[in-house]
């Protein structure tokens, strides 16, 4: 099962319940946003909680995509303006890359 997909606009919000990193509820999760611009992610490293999702927003003028080898995620082409939601449901350290521009990368630590 691959947890990613193109969402038109506020798609990620649907996943969001109340609570943050320290939430107790099993259903609590946070949605984070990472922007892609100038062939770079807006951050190089981030920490999220198990069950959180990240919305990758292509704010660039060129196509990108999202590849996470360890999670078997490969998103297909992500045109400018398109968003990709990824649910991180297992703990570990994951390298998220653009498969088109491999120098674009962000490390996501899921705790």
């Amino acid at each position: 099962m691959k947890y990613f997909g193109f969402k038109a606009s506020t798609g990620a919000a649907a996943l969001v319940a109340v609570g943050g990193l320290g939430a107790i509820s099993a259903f609590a999760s946070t949605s984070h946003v990472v922007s892609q611009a100038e062939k770079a992610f807006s951050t190089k490293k981030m920490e999220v909680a198990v069950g959180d999702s990240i919305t990758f927003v292509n704010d660039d003028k060129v196509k990108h995509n999202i590849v996470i080898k360890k999670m078997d995620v490969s998103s297909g082409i992500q045109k400018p303006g398109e968003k990709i939601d990824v649910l991180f449901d297992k703990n570990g350290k994951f390298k998220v890359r653009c498969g088109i521009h491999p120098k674009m990368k962000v490390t996501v630590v899921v705790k």
Partner: protein
Amino acid sequence: MNLLDISWRSLIAGGVFAAAMPAMAAEQIATRTVAGVDPAELQKMIELNVRPNAIPFPEENPYSVEKAELGKMLFFDPRLSGSNLLSCASCHNPSFGWEDGQPTGAGHGMNRLGRHTPTVLNLAWGEIFMWDGRMDSLEEQALGPIQADVEMAQPLDELIAELQAIEGYRELFAAAFPDQEISEETIGQAIATYERTIVSNRAPFDHWVDGDESAISESAKRGFVIYNTKANCVACHSGWNMTDDSFHDIGLDTDDVGRAAEMNDMPEFKHAFKTPGLRNIVERAPYMHNGSLATLGEVIDHYATGFAERPSLSDDIKPFELSAAEKDDLIAFLESLSSEDDPVEIPVLPN
């Protein structure tokens, strides 16, 4: 001794790493001239080629002398193959720019492989590995060819048992990885650490970048400008190691789908292969992912007009016309990227 002349070996031995070495500031670059080229434009082109002064090692697998030494043993050890005849160095031979001089590699049972052996030079700066980028780290990459049936055909569990049975290796692993068993991970980490130390020395081109006007010929200087302008090689072969680490269909006659196999069959990646760096490129013939072009002249002809027009062709591939003299200039520039590297001592392996 000029700081810039310190060899990579002494940088490593002295434990001097990125944080300790200041990057060369742009203002230190002397003003250079090439006839007919705007000095400011030339300066911009040159600044993009300033070399880093230290090798980057990842947080997950930091450098140690012991790891690099063990990795070198493993790299040159034919017992890493099922036949005990092929080592990593059989194909990645330091004499041929860490390639094999063949159009495509030869693996287990002398089987011809489908693609040209890529160099291991300067991979410390690599992002993802193999012609199609299917390996995410050098650690992971190192284990790929060892296990592949058509390459070294060595199951890793058997290899671990073989290495464990050799006292010298038990000691080397214990020194490199205290409190760890010999494992896939430690084998991969040791080889990757050694590979990261394989760096081309400063070439004549680098000395020119550093400000030595006489380091390269006038022809090579003109070639550098052609590389950056008319021929637009720099669109993909960018930076000091001359690669964007990305993937492009450059219009070669090939059935190989390349990166598309890795990327959900995305049409954009059909026949796309990773841009190789161009350091020591003269020593690395023949060229291209399938070794189909014998000389740099043929490569230039391919990019000028020889490519196939097809939907997946990279937007950066556009025809250009060079005179015979301009072509010679471009080749002279590419020749200036070859460094005189330290001799590689073949290790005596533990028995």
